[in-house]
């Protein structure tokens, strides 16, 4: 089972938990309807479509409402520290949340006792706090974009907002940034770096480069990184190893983008609708 943890930009009074359903591009969780937009809802929608294609159960979600004040994030951390061990999830994907090192470490501690230990994926705010806490190596997959990779490579930066300029200027030298992140122990076991070329890397270096099809507009479209993480997480939950899942998800995400024929003004829902066909094509061509 895949469990997805994150926040949504709504004023939910409490943490919602349960299996999601996706009906005509709308998410339903614990009796509540949640609009799909960029962020954790896009990740969930992509994961749900992937699971449906593979014949798996829909993802389990644990969501709090937070528009940035951090109140929902704190509710979510507290909930996780108590409940995360009871889910029995094979894979847990952590997403939008206000970074808080102390709470992150409490949640990680709660997972340390689990046997088998779930496969851990982190993106967005949870990736930031995983790195800042010095615990990046406890995770199996991070999905940074190029700017976030520079942040992972900067051992002094607690957030991408403080990434030092000399590293941001290195963005055309991704292998060096990847090596630096691993040297500082600030990278997960596998990295999926999203960019003009998507790179899949491990401590041993770059393992795969995915650059076709080229859909330049996708970089501007909010949520394309979320759909990529959602597909990868769902594939891992279905039993695929992390590295292969990252490669397949990167290919499918690009293909879904191409099928949507996007402009920089395209919204993520249009790309999500193309995921089943794109993923089926990629899986069929393996």
């Amino acid at each position: 089972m895949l469990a997805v943890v994150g926040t949504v930009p709504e004023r939910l009074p409490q943490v919602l938990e349960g299996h999601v359903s996706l009906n005509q591009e709308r998410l339903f969780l614990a009796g509540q309807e949640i609009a799909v937009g960029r962020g954790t809802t896009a990740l969930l929608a992509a994961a749900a479509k992937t699971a449906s294609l593979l014949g798996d159960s829909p993802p389990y979600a644990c969501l709090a409402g937070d528009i940035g004040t951090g109140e929902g994030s704190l509710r979510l951390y507290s909930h996780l520290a108590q409940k995360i061990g009871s889910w029995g999830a094979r894979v847990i994907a952590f997403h939008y949340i206000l970074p808080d090192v102390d709470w992150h470490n409490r949640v990680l501690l709660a997972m340390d006792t689990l046997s088998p230990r779930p496969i851990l994926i982190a993106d967005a705010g949870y990736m930031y706090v995983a790195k800042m806490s010095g615990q990046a190596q406890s995770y199996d997959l991070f999905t940074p974009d190029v700017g976030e990779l520079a942040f992972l490579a900067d051992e002094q930066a607690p957030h991408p907002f403080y990434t030092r300029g000399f590293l941001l200027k290195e963005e055309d030298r991704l292998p060096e940034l990847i090596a630096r992140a691993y040297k500082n122990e600030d990278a997960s076991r596998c990295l999926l770096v999203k960019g003009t070329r998507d790179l899949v890397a491990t401590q041993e270096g770059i393992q795969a480069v995915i650059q076709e099809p080229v859909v330049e507009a996708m970089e501007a479209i909010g949520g394309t990184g979320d759909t990529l993480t959602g597909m990868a997480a769902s594939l891992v939950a279905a039993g695929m190893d992390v590295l292969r899942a990252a490669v397949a998800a990167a290919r499918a995400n690009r293909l879904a983008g191409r099928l949507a024929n996007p402009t920089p003004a395209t919204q993520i829902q249009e790309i999500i609708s193309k995921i089943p066909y794109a993923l089926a094509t990629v899986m069929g061509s393996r």
Partner: protein
Amino acid sequence: MKSFLKRFRRDTGKSPKPSAEGRQGKGILVFRSTGEVIRAERVLRAKGKKVRVMGPPPQIQTGCDMVIEFALMEQLEVKRILGDVGLEPLGVVPVDSPLLTPVGLYHVKELGAYLMVRAANMKLTVERGTGLIVNVSGGGCPDVPYLAQELVGQNLREAPQPLELGHTLCGYALQMAFEEAMRRCLQ
């Protein structure tokens, strides 16, 4: 303050070393949340105070935070200005080593009729001819989906500034991208 300081970053031995040059005469104001920092900066600047938003020293980093650097000799006046609007810092700390500096680099990419501006981890895409905000991407803090929801479909001239709605470092970075897009599109 005590509970705030309990939330130290785990000591990984990676903290920046103090610099010999130091920052004599400077102090930092520490607040409960990034939202309070954003508000305090706005209030102090409106009163003509020379303040800067900076990264906190490693000993008090919690995750998504920033502090306000100010001239220590103005401490009483600064606290009074903040008190007048109901803002009370958790603490005032003298600074004797360099603080982290926010990203100052912008990446600007032309995508046909659109312009994508990136500041730190946030990207804002606008239609060049009209200033219409068509997409917000990047980021990882929880106000990002909310900001995207509120800004996309609005014109740069009429849209609320991200700092008015945002609460986090990602919101602050989006403000920087927003201002750069304004400079480039609406000159």
